[in-house]
């Protein structure tokens, strides 16, 4: 099964590059505790999924690069070419001269329709190279214009052109402040439109990744490259081959499908967050040992206390004694993070010994789903990306409720003051459309609040 990746805008292209780079370096890393045969199959499955092999053996990504200005795409292409391990399909890129100027409406209403045919043609060419198209993986940011506006438009086109394929949108959530001033408008427009056409939204918050870089990775002067590497690591930990059931004899060839099947069957709950453990600098990694019990205990508390990383977890948060405890009010501080569904992915040594009973606790989940429906476990003895043991938790839960509420609140105030609205009406997004967007998002917030 193969996944076609679409990298959009500056952020999408930069993250996409790091993602492929980490997949490749992981493929070439020592297999750790898995057998040679298993490792070979691991490589085959990964390659099939994200690359096609040229006759000379070079790995070429199944990716389409899109940006409205040329600098980032050309730099990304050349960086990949220099890596020696993999490269992009040079013909599978599209860039223009002039960016979308941070304007979602410009990307969605102008550039999107204008370049739809060419870009969809590039996508089709990649799709035709797949024996089996598993789905599309779109990497974009919410803040800017190209990634968010054009990305949203292309997602709609993909949905129309490939109605049965799976669409996963990797969305980079902007820093709370300081990236783009109109980011809240762009974000709500992106989210509300993606909710209509995408199957699942996998969200990475820049603020949190930034904290991971500074507090866990111990990086002093954090660059976007560092941030993107952490995101790529987390993405890789989901998509690298894994056994999706106890009885499975082979690595799962359809992780995208299985991921969606266990996390986002409900159309009102499509937001996925990601937590992983451990995460540290290479230097401290050399001096650390881990055991599964400890890792999973931390991961569980990170989940229920809504901690974004293993440092600073609030250990006082406990699951409510009664599963149908009174509904938490949104404006109140959310103490306990209720989940719709969780997926744990364990990779590394002695993975068979890990016990995940803590994740099958009914109070962790919404009362209308039993833990058997709501919790899924994948694992593999093969270590991932230098970590002897590592655990990733993909969670469909209330964890995004607060940032979402924040963004909608700020955008609402700005909208009520009519600030910047003229920049959008100029390209055809009128106040009516804004109101509809607000309605959609309030609905999402309400759905997650009333779990």
């Amino acid at each position, binding site marked *: 099964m193969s996944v076609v990746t679409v990298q959009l805008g500056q952020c999408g292209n930069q993250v996409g590059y790091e993602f492929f780079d980490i997949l490749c370096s992981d493929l070439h890393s020592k297999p750790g505790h898995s057998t040679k045969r298993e490792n070979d199959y691991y490589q085959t499955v990964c390659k099939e999924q994200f690359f096609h092999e040229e006759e000379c053996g070079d790995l070429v990504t199944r990716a389409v690069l899109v940006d409205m200005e040329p600098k980032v795409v050309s730099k990304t292409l050349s960086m990949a070419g220099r890596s020696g391990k993999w490269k992009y399909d040079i013909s599978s890129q599209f860039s223009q001269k002039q960016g979308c100027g941070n304007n979602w409406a410009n990307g969605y209403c102008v550039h999107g329709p204008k370049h739809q045919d060419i870009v969809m043609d590039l996508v089709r060419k990649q799709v035709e190279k797949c024996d089996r198209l598993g789905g599309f993986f779109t990497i974009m940011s919410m803040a800017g214009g190209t990634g968010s506006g054009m990305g949203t438009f292309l997602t709609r086109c993909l949905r129309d052109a490939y109605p049965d394929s799976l669409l996963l949108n990797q969305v980079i959530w902007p820093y709370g402040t300081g990236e783009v001033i109109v980011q809240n408008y762009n974000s709500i427009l992106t989210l509300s439109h993606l909710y209509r056409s995408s199957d699942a939204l996998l969200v990475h918050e820049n603020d949190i990744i930034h904290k991971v870089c500074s507090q866990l990775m111990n990086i002093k002067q954090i660059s976007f*490259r560092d941030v993107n590497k952490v995101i790529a690591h987390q993405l890789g930990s989901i998509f690298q081959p894994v056994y999706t059931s106890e009885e499975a004899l082979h690595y799962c060839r359809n992780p995208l499908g299985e991921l969606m099947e266990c996390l986002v069957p409900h159309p009102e709950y499509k937001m996925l967050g990601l937590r992983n453990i451990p995460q540290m600098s290479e230097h401290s990694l050399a001096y650390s040992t881990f055991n599964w019990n400890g890792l999973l205990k931390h991961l569980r508390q990170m989940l229920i206390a809504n901690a974004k990383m293993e440092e600073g977890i609030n250990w006082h948060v406990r699951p409510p004694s009664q599963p149908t405890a009174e509904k938490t009010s949104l404006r109140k501080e959310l103490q306990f993070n209720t989940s719709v569904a969780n997926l744990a992915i364990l990779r590394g040594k002695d993975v068979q010994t890990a016990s995940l009973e803590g994740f099958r606790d009914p109070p962790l989940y919404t009362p209308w789903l039993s833990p058997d429906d709501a919790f899924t476990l994948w694992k593999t003895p093969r270590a991932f990306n230098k970590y002897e043991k590592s655990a990733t938790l993909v969670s469909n839960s209330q964890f995004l409720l607060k940032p979402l509420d924040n963004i909608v609140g700020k955008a609402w105030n700005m909208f009520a003051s009519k600030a910047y609205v003229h920049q959008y009406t100029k390209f055809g997004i009128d106040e009516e459309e804004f109101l509809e967007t607000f309605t959609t998002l309030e609905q999402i917030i309400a759905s997650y609040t009333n779990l």
Partner: protein
Amino acid sequence: MTQSIVVQVGQCGNQIGCRFWDLALREHASVNKKGIFDEALCSFFRNVDTRAEAGGADAQRGKICSLKARAVLIDMEEGVVNEILQGPLRDLFDSKQLITDVSGSGNNWAVGHKLYGGQYREHIVENLRRTAEQCDCLQCFFVIHSMGGGTGSGLGTFVLNVLEEEFPEVYRFVTSVYPSAEDDVITSPYNSVLAMKELTEHADCVLPIENQALVDIVNKINQMANTGKLGNVKSNSLLTSNKGGIKENEKPFDAMNNIVANLLLNLTSSARFEGSLNMDLNEISMNLVPFPQLHYLTSSLTPLYTLADVNVPTRRLDQMFSDAFSKDHQLIRADPKHSLYLACALMVRGNVQISDLRRNIERLKPFLQFVSWNQEGWKTGLCSVPPVGHSHSLLALANNTCVKPTFIELRDRFSKLYRKKAHLHHYMQVDGMEQHCFTEAISSLSSLIEEYSQLDASKGIHVSYPPRLNII
């Protein structure tokens, strides 16, 4: 990549333009060592093979043959333009890019706008067209002019109108030099206010610059550089310096004009060079202009010079951010810290990472007041190529109500003259100029001031917004 065209109008506009081209060449020369005509160069220059046809067809890529500026030079006197044509930059321009007259505008906006406007319209349009056709993706016009004189303010704003009519899709950024209070042109308040109305209505962004502020900055730099207390100042790092440029001997206004030229270079750096967080020109108006008319952006440049020792401690990097918000570094005489921010952009060049940016935003935020609906009104850009002579630099652009006092002062000076009807007849003599032009101009300025005042009034008051939509 996109291209931009510089339209320099009047004496002041051409002098600044001249410094801009000199410094732009210097900057590209320091980045582009191989002498290849690259994308970055393409944004302001054409590569012309002069040996080919007489027309000089563009030699697209490859080795630099002969660079031509994407510029239109307009002046109604010949002095400054002739000087440029005889100076070291003469090869940058050919005669087709020039529009000159001999008689000048006599410090009269009406002469520039109405008389010469009508007279030269065809010529100007043709000239702009030709220059625009030499671009494959024209993004922006940079108009450089002064507000006080006749040609710059009158014809400059006329050109702005022409641009809007002929090239509605292309952005119009205007760098306007405002006269000092003790300006020797007596009609400068009239000219400025009449020009202001045009700027408010037809520009996408205006970067107001005050002569007096430039003078203050130059004095400050000279003082710092000459006392030598801070150690050696690195040569050609002075924001006012010509060093490394083609023209080494400085003229009186060169120091001031270099500052404005640097402003334009930094403004366009992220669009020309690569970086980890690009900031295209169209992002500036998108992020900084919340309401169509409020597009006056105050600017500040730091550092003004770099010390010779190479180590850059974090402290000094942070100082750069602090300076950008101080009164002394603004290019107009205003204090943004004590006024209300609508939005703010930080365009950083050089070896600065996102964490440095974030740290400084967090540090500075408590001291700045932002309008209630835009508490996080920060836009940032990271360009990896530093300016010549520096390891890093910062251009802060702010949409801040601190421009209001400048406008009020202008209005007062205008009213003082207008009450006495002084010099009005000079204007009324010009065809097409009527009394209502003055009243409309002053009411346009007043309503602009009023808009800023209303925003100012919301400062510090808790604003209540309509309740959010409720899902039942």
